[in-house]
């Protein structure tokens, strides 16, 4: 089956600044593709180009076989977008917003009424449906935005940071509903800067940084692919000396050492169960005061760090 979306050198410049830089990426029909990256990575800009809202500076994307440059009307027939910032007039009400959206997207009257009620109830919005948006919290506005797409059930749903500002219970609910939407045949592009969200929800994750695609694969393969797949984080009471770092580097199993916070070292290594006792011994001999040691499987953050030399959090500060 050909990919439902194909981006070919998709590029967007704002003046001299390249927000999206020659992106080549394919989305398979029926999958949830996570677009993971820190703020400013270019996720939203990419999405807006696919949704025909802004025009690419260079390159193009094919959506359902249609070129976003040449057949934008056809492309829009296939899409539903839940924007990062809820796009609504503050004088309107949630019910008016989602009901009108469903109408514009061509849902027949009966189905529309049923689905509007069903989704609004599922998202705990039914009681607020006639309040003005003005009076709603950020999280509630975000729910209105995501409800539009869940009601619409488009061929391709694009959701931009769907659960930001939403409490943890709400997040799980929305993740479940998005997975369900996907099971019913909708292809989903999920832009996010939350590692956990990308990990649990995506079939494949495309990692973006500074407008470029770094890598794209299933979360499992991405994590397995890292050399020095295991991670040990050692938190010291005081800053570890360069000599200490050097000593740690002497272990041949240690692939890489990163300083994540002021007194914390993150070690990427192999054979964690054999090496940790040896490291402990060495640290004790050197008289280092360790306050905690934490071992973990690699996360998508490690994948991100592997490609950029930065944790997502660090990159976030840089981009935001």
């Amino acid at each position, binding site marked *: 089956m050909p990919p439902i979306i194909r981006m070919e050198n998709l590029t967007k410049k704002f003046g001299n600044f390249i927000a999206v830089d020659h992106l080549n990426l394919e989305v398979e029909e029926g999958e949830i593709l996570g677009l993971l990256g820190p703020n400013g990575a270019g996720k939203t800009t990419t999405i*807006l180009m696919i*949704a*025909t*809202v*802004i*025009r690419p500076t260079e390159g193009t994307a094919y959506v359902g076989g249609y070129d976003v440059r040449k057949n934008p*009307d056809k492309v*829009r*027939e296939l*899409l539903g*977008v839940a*924007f990062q*910032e809820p*796009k*609504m*007039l503050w*004088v*309107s009400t949630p019910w*008016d917003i989602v009901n*009108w959206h469903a*109408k*514009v*997207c*061509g849902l027949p009257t009966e189905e529309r009424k049923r689905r509007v009620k069903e989704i609004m109830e599922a998202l705990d919005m039914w009681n607020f449906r006639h309040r003005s948006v003005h009076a709603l919290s950020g999280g509630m506005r975000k729910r209105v935005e995501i409800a539009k797409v869940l009601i619409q059930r488009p061929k391709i749903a694009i959701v931009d940071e769907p659960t930001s500002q939403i409490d943890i219970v709400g997040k799980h609910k929305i993740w479940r509903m998005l997975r369900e939407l996907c099971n019913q045949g909708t292809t989903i592009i999920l832009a996010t800067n939350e590692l956990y969200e990308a990990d649990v929800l995506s079939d494949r994750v495309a990692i973006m940084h500074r407008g470029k695609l770094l890598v794209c694969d299933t979360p499992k393969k991405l994590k397995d692919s890292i050399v020095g797949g295991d991670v040990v984080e050692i938190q010291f009471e005081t800053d570890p000396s360069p000599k200490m770092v050097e000593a740690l580097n002497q272990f041949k199993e240690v692939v890489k050492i990163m300083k994540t916070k002021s007194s914390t070292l993150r070690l990427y290594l192999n054979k964690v169960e054999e090496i940790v006792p040896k490291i402990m011994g060495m640290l004790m001999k050197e008289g280092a005061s360790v306050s905690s040691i934490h071992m973990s499987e690699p996360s998508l953050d490690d994948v991100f760090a592997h490609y950029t030399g930065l944790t997502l959090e660090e990159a976030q500060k840089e981009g935001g």
Partner: protein
Amino acid sequence: MRQIINLLEHDFRNFFRYKWWLAGLISMNLADLFIMAIVYNRMLTPEITQQIKSYFNFFAPGLTVTGLFASAFMIGREVNMERRREIHQYMLSLPMSRWELAIGRVLSGGLRGMVYMSPLLATCFILVGFPSPAQFSIILLVLFFLAMGISGLSIAIAVSTSSLDKFITARGLVYYLLFFCSSVFYPFSLIQQLGQEGRFPMALVTFARINPLSNASDIIRSFLLGNPPFSLDMVVSVLVFSALFTFSAAFAYIKLIERA
């Protein structure tokens, strides 16, 4: 077509959300009518008084056009707000063509103007006199085209101004230019006379003659008051101006909201 109706629904719903704003506007309009009628009746020279009889009768059609202008112009305020808050991105992502979107917005702005104006027009008929059915159709047609033109103009201004302040300033400038150089508030013969005496630039006199607001007001006057005499040129002037504004606005809307 279906999408244009959806856009009308969207914009009319928002229009009626501002019902207090509208009520405020309409009462300002009515206050204008009475204040101006009193003030101007005293200021007018005897020859002009002779020509237009009562300023109230003269100004009632002008007021109808004023109300139409203010209400049809409101769509621009919304379009401007949508653009500033990037709500236009949502509109652009909907399954409709750019032309449907642009025409839908211009049309709803115009129709909202017609709805707002209808009580003013009715007041005008009741107090000044009723037109024949044929005249009534012409009045409606002309006002509809004028409303479309104004709506288009406001949208064009809305998408090319970045802030609400700038939009309001631009609206003020357009308002003064269009109303000052028109026969909405005073008869064209007066403007013409001032022009001939060299007290008013001739370019502005010409502008007042082709100004669609002048012509729309005068068409109503010629049917209700018999003066100035009706001519087809008046209708043509409104149609040309409106077509021009409507299409350039639709075009500007498409071009400018896509520019990012």
